[in-house]
């Protein structure tokens, strides 16, 4: 135990004190602070534009061939596009096209017929709400004018047609829409942490072998102690980095950009403490599950060139687990059969169960079972890794094949 602590401390300090660690953490933190400032900067820039009286408003050209100069056409456009100047014209399509292209007009609408409209725009942006808004405006126009013809006043019909229902949502479980952002962000961190720190442990194991520092270490402490110390030490270093980054993010969002961010964005960023604690729990479990395997596999490599081939199966597992869970989050159903199965498979469980817990309502027994499965895997993988490590660290030359490892493990078991 004393050895594990000593190795842990050495590995932790060795990791935290490296230039690359300090620089990457600093860059991350600076980026986050910068990002937190950004909305404020953008807003104030926009605000400045709004206040400028002389700023020309973009123009919408409407060529009306249907309503015969009805004042409602301009009125309804003006109501729906307050930031624009509405220009009623009788130019033909060609001329409108030229003017839209030269940006004299932001866009142009030609009413050919009550339900047949030509929309001329310079760039049609995907996923923009522009088309929807136009559709809505034109519908409103058609309906209001039609009602007017039937004797309902424009004011009355507009009021009826543009009535908005206010929906008050009461959620009894977890609101999936609510935690979406937080889950996504924390999942991303979880994934990055496993890949980054897993790789770090692998590298450090191989370099100890490569530089033969292992020859000395192995005579001072048991291989299993060396491995546990290294894995836990690097994990703590990773955790330190994560805590620094996450807390910078939280602090700067809550202070620097508190007032500049729109209300709905702030709501996205608000997530319960339990989500953070779950993230921490699943980070620890996931980290150990993967890092034990990576550590054991890397101990088989004598040079860093061999490392990639050895650890790529594990890396593929991490990526696959991440993809599965991300797809489930995006599909909106984090409790699909696939996800339920995944939350009990050691390799996918940390991410799958985390997504489920933070985005939906999961029975307590399910959480306990999943955590138990993961803890058991950590224990088993830890023991297996210690056994492989013991063989691996003193082996040089080509990495052995899986069958050879199995044979050696059996021999070792006999001793």
């Amino acid at each position, binding site marked *: 135990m004393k050895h594990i602590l000593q190795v842990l401390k050495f590995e932790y300090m060795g990791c935290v004190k490296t230039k690359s660690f300090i620089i990457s953490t600093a860059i991350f933190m600076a980026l986050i602070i910068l990002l937190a400032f950004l909305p404020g900067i953008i807003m104030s820039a926009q605000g400045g534009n709004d206040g400028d009286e002389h700023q020309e408003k973009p123009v919408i050209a409407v060529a009306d061939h249907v309503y015969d100069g009805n004042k409602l056409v301009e009125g309804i456009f003006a109501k729906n596009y307050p930031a624009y100047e509405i220009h009623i014209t009788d130019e033909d399509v060609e001329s409108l096209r030229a003017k839209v292209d030269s940006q004299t007009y932001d866009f142009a609408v030609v009413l050919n017929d009550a339900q047949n409209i030509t929309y001329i725009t310079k760039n049609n942006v995907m996923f923009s709400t522009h088309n929807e808004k136009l559709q809505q405006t034109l519908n409103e126009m058609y309906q209001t004018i039609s009602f007017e013809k039937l004797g309902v006043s424009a004011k009355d019909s507009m009021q009826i047609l543009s009535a908005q229902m206010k929906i008050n949502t009461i959620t009894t479980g977890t609101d999936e829409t609510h935690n979406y952002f937080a889950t996504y962000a924390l999942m991303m961190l979880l994934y990055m942490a496993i890949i980054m720190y897993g790789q770090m442990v692998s590298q450090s194991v191989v370099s100890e072998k490569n530089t033969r520092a292992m020859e*000395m*270490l*192995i005579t001072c402490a048991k291989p299993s102690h060396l491995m546990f110390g290294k894995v836990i030490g690097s994990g703590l270093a990773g955790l330190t980095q994560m805590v620094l980054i996450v807390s910078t993010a939280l602090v700067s969002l809550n202070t620097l950009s508190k007032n500049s961010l729109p209300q709905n964005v702030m709501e996205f960023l608000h997530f319960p403490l339990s989500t953070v604690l779950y993230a921490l729990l699943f980070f620890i479990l996931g980290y150990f599950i993967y890092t034990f395997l990576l550590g054991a596999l890397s101990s088989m490599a004598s040079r860093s060139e061999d490392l990639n081939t050895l650890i790529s199966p594990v890396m593929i597992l991490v990526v696959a687990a991440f993809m599965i869970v991300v797809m489930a989050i995006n599909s909106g159903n984090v409790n699909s059969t696939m996800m339920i199965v995944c939350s009990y498979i050691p390799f996918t469980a940390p991410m799958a169960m985390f997504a489920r817990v933070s985005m939906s309502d999961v029975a307590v027994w399910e959480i306990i079972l999943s955590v138990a499965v993961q803890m058991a895997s950590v224990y088993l993988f830890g023991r297996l890794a210690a056994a492989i490590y013991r063989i691996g660290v003193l082996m040089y030359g080509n990495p052995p094949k899986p069958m050879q490892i199995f044979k050696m493990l059996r021999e070792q078991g006999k001793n």
Partner: protein
Amino acid sequence: MELTINNIDKHFGEKEVLRDVSLTAKSGSALGLLGRNGAGKTTTIRIVMGVFLPDKGTVCVDGKPIDRSKIRIGYMPEERGLYPKKRIDEQLIYLAMLRGMNKTDARNACGKWLNRMGMGEYQQKKLETLSKGNQQKIQLAATLMCNPQIVILDEPFSGLDPVNAMLLKDVIKEMIAGGAVVLFSSHQMNYIEEFCDSIAILNGGKIVLEGRIADIKHSYPRDKIAVASGQIEQIAPFVLQHMSGEVLSAEKDKDNQNTLMIRLQSSDSKAKLLACLSEGGFDVDAFRVCEPSMNDIFVQYTEAGI
């Protein structure tokens, strides 16, 4: 203190690496562990260090199974083992603490040994910035820092210049005089002869020769005499003539122009040969029994292959 290795067997998979290996090393003396590459030296050392468990046999100190938590062992591996990219003092203190020292003692020992090696000024440097010979000295400091009772040195002289080799010799002699058990493995036979009272030669996983160097050399027939003189051209026919029957051959040494190698029928005729030379009135510079060199002994016992 006495370190004994009793009847050790070790297999790796199908391959038998050590068979019935037994050794004894006493405090205040050095044991030379010899053998060709792959003979099993490193495996033997690792078994002593407790890195491997033997399939059979024991490692004992003063007759009791070794307790590695109580006995301090300093090991210098052949394949040098330190972190090139870490600060020298940091890693030395770390290794000493893993061996059970507390931080203050480790720091003091680190300073003391680095100064002893003339490396005090490099304490805070990274290891990789040092030359090979200096790295070697750091390695030796790492080995000796915990004030070991058993010192195991695997090729300690490789890469050292003559001045540093002298420094290392002094340090090793100090350790021996201080009562440490020293296990010394090297292919440089001159060093073995210089430090070791006893040797053990491993070949193919078995001990093929063990004992005190003096005894081993003495066990060879002492019937070969080297005579150094400026007149060997005259001496050769003279002794062959005057001691015919007792002198089998008298030939010029291949490596030394002024030395005549004389083979006697029996080592008892030495005195007579000396008398014969003075009778002839030759100017003799040296007269000695030709002992086999360590090199000869090593080659003789390991030539058969592994």
